Structure formats: structure tokens, C-alpha cells
């Protein structure tokens, strides 16, 4: 293929047609599968694509599209959050919503809630459930 600039890539017109013509001549002379496959491997290899040299999506743009980030007000808040959640990538969150999350985590610390596998249980209900399972 020839690179004719950023707007178009035109294949080399004579080369593909010549390759096919030669291939068809070989195939016409022999109907053997082995000969056909040999001719294909010899003549019909793919040409590599031209390299794109234009602007690429920025890494930041990619990160913004797929990443989400929480903003913590203090190191203490961050440490508490990290205790219960795997810290990967998070979205910019409204601080008032962060209050709800931090409130939940503080109550977990005090034993009012149980956080397990990303789900929140009331500590009392969970204890009752555990007792029921133990008693059979």
C-alpha cells in the first residue's frame, strides 16, 4: 500500500493483480491441493499496513474515560477507606456524598455495620444469621 497522505491509503494497483494472475496460472496447470497451497504461500503474502502518524488519543483522555477517583479531605479519611476497599481507580465524587461513605465506614468501625465482599449488613442481623446457621 502507498501512503498518499493523512486522508488516504491507496493499494499498489499492479502488484496485487500481478500476484493473482501468476497464482491463477499455477493453479490452472495443476489441481493438486499441495501445489495450490505452495503457490498461495509463495505469492499471496499480506503487505503490512502503513503506520499511522497522526494524533493519538492522549493517555489522560483514556484514563479519564475509564478511571474514577474519590477525593478525600484528610489522610485519616483515606486510611479508613483503604482499610475496607481495594484502592484502584475512582471517580471525582461530590464531597457531600463522601460524607455518607465516611459515615458508613465510621459506623463499621464502631461495630454497627459489617462490611463483607462489598456488601453491607446490619451487625445485629448478621449475628442472628450466624447464630441460626450454628444452631442448624
Amino acid at each position, binding site marked *: 500500500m502507498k501512503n498518499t497522505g493523512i486522508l488516504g491509503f491507496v493499494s499498489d494497483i499492479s502488484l496485487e493483480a500481478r500476484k493473482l494472475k501468476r497464482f491463477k496460472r499455477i493453479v490452472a496447470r495443476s489441481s493438486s491441493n499441495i501445489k495450490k497451497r505452495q503457490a498461495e504461500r509463495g505469492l499471496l503474502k499480506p503487505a503490512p499496513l502503513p503506520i499511522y502518524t497522526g494524533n493519538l488519543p492522549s493517555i489522560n483522555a483514556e484514563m479519564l474515560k475509564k478511571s474514577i477517583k474519590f477525593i478525600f479531605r484528610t489522610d485519616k479519611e483515606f486510611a479508613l477507606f483503604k482499610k475496607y476497599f481495594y484502592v484502584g*481507580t475512582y471517580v471525582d465524587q461530590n464531597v457531600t456524598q463522601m460524607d455518607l461513605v465516611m459515615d458508613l465506614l465510621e459506623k463499621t468501625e464502631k461495630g454497627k455495620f459489617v462490611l463483607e465482599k462489598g456488601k453491607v449488613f446490619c451487625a445485629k442481623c448478621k449475628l442472628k444469621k450466624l447464630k441460626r446457621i450454628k444452631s442448624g
Partner: protein
Amino acid sequence: MDNIQRIKKYRKNIAEDYKKFLLEGAEDKNYLEVRSLKFTRNPRLSSEYTDCALPLTFDFYSKCSMSCVYCFGYYFKSSNPSFSPEVRIPDVKKMILSLEGKKSNRRHDLFYKYFYKDRHILHWGGLTDPFCYYEKVNKRAFPLIKALGEFSYPTLFSFKGSTIFDDKYLSLFEKYSKQKNFAFQISIVSNSDKMARLIEIKVPSTTRRFEAMKILSNMGYFTSLRLRPFIIGITDKDLDILLERARDAGARSVSVEFFAADVRTSRAMKLRYKLLGEIIGTDLLPYFHDLSPSERGGYLRLNRLVKESYVKKIYKFCVDNDIIFACSDPDFKELNMTGCCCGLPENSEEYPLLNNWTRSQITWHLKELRREYHRTGKRGVLTFDKVYKDASGYFNDTYFSDDHVKTVGMCNVDRKRQTFGNMARMEWNNFRTPGNPRNYFHGKLMPVGLTAEKDIIYKYNPQEWEDRWKKEGIDLGK
């Protein structure tokens, strides 16, 4: 040992190997009986959704009793360490409830919300055959087929199994034939019964499959020839006769996709490649390796030049016989006469229920670009938002992240945040992935710049073969 003896030996080993695969997790004597109480996660979303018109895909039995040497489903399952050895089926009761719009479980409720409510076509037969011997023995899919008939729900069956010949099933399809909600795509890859027997073990003959096509066409159903995979060295023999037989059996469309070999082969797959190599006349993997573009990664699909003469023959036949040409292969996909590469019609008045597949995928747009170019001379462009703007809600729902094959290996927090839309966008913009449009269609769509949202813009790239075909008088504007 000569060629024929080797072929027989490989075939025997493949059949024994496959029997062991079926026996895993089953009782020896009644290995076809379904005993598991666990359900599969079917229906599911197709991992090929970026260029697939039928993202809602469905398999009933987790295994297939037939052993086709080229089977992609077997390759996929035998290479998957989390694949359960016992045969399982979906929860039919819950599925029927959700088809009716009644509350079921979360997964089925979401399928109702994104697909059933709009009566989006259900594609039955992605990785296992709906009418293989598992169905013959168990008949567990029958109530679901009956429910689909009662709801007149549009369903495409891709099959080659013979259970469909049982009176029970034929009567059912006869009963609902006036609704025309069912469509049938019959897989046939060789004109010769003898050749078919070599590479399709425990599968009805080509002749028998054409009989099935004829019966269903005569009932008034939309039938299609599924020429997938097209194996060079096997399918090309007597291809003209094969196409004529399909036309005479009432096929309304032909869907073609060429056989691809994966470099990540297991011992079992290597045996299959050996058998195919003996028949087609060369060592399979080196042949595919030499002729496949490196930009497409380890799933080796050969290249356009190798496939051109066969595609031309099929396309010309379809044009001359007023049959829909459909191509699921990334090479020549632009030649599709419909935006559904399974060959379903676009705006059929005779089969209105079969028009309901998604246009928010690359196949539709690529076909439109080709038409536009050959009718007006204009080279159109594609942006991510243009292709996927009307994608169904599942596209942005994080619930389905586990359905996507690319989330395997991601950490939990990243996986749970993924959507099909995110992953499609990442592929769209990353030239290192084989699924990127530039790489996947190998130059048919070329990058020309960025949108304001920093997504790549692709432009239709006319190629040399199009000039040659036009000079031969082939209409490329269809």
C-alpha cells in the same frame, strides 16, 4: 504411512478424544443425559458485539454431541480452565418468565429490559448445536422452543443436528410457520457427503442437511446457508454445485466466514489441525502463519488475496440469483448486502420480525460506507459515537462486565467497573489490539484524525480489488 491412512488415524484419534471430553463429568453408560442441577449463564452477550447484529446469543446445552474438526466452540471450551465438565442447561422457567415480562432474577430481568421488551432477535446456536443428540435424548429445550413460538419471539437457529427431523419438532415448527418468527441457518461446509463425514464426526450428511433446509423453506421460514467455516482446500471443491443446491433448497441468504487457526493450540486442537492439514495439502499452522497479517494477532485469518476468488464466486452467485450475500469474515465484510452478517434481511416485508437486529455495530456502517462509495464516489468516515450512539442499554451497564472475555485477568475493582461500551472504546482507539478497526479489517478503514472527544476517526479506504471487480462488470453498489 500414506495420506489416506494418516487421515483415518487422525480422525479416529479425534473421535476418541472427543468421546473422553463428553464423558468427563458424566456417567459412562448414559453420558448424554443431563443430570446437573446447576444452570448456565445463558442467554449471554456475544463477545463479538462490536461488529455483530445479534449480541443476544444463546446455547442450550453446555456441550455438543457432534465433533466437527474445525469447531471453534470446542477450542474455546477445551482451552477454558473454568469450563465445567458436566453438561448443564439454562434455567428455562426463569427465562420463559422473563420473556413474558414477568419478574424473574436480576440477570433475566435485565435481558428483558434490554432485549426481550424490544423483541430483539435471539441467536440460538453460537457454540453448541440446538438439535444435536443431547436434545434428542433429553428434549429439555422443547418447552423453550414452544414458548418462543407462543410468544412469536424472533429467533435464529444455527444448526446442523438431526433432532429437528423428529415429528415433535417438525409439528411445532409447522404450527408456528405462519408467524415467521423463526429463521434457520444451516451449517454446510462441503458439497461432498464423503468429505463431510471426514471432518464432521457424528454429524448428518450434507444431503440430509439440505433436506432439512428444504422442509423448513417449504414451511415458509427464512432459511440461510451458513458457509462457515469456509475451509480453503475443502469447501471450494464443487462450490458452484453447493451454492446451487442451497438455492434449490430455498436458501434466502448465504453467510460466509473463512476458517481461522489459533496459535494457542492445545494437544487436542493440534490433532485436528493435522487432519485438516492432510486434507488441504499443507501443514496448517505454518500456512496460516505465513498468510495472515501480523496486525490481527494470534487468531490467524489469512488475507484478502487468498480469499478473493472464492468470495467473488459466492458474491456473483448471490447477485445473479437474488440471494442476500453476507460475510462474517473481516475481509470483504464491506460486501454484505445486509447489516447482519448472519444473512438476516434488512427491511423485509415478508419477514418483518427478522428485521429487528441492532444497527449499532461496525458491519452495518461498513456496508453503508461501501454502498455510498460505489453509488456516489464519496469516502465516508466513522466515529465511535456514530457507530454506537443507539446501542442498547446493555452497552453501558456494568452488570454485564463478567460476560466480556477481556475482563478475565482484571482485578475485581476494575472488572466490576467495566462495560461493553468502555471496552469497545478502548479497542477503537488502541492500534495495538487485533480488534481495532484498522487492524481487524486490515486496511479497509484507516485512521485519519481525532474527534473532539479524542476518539479516532476512520475513513473508508477503497482497495484495488474493487476496481478490478467493477471492470469485470460486478455490481458493488448492492
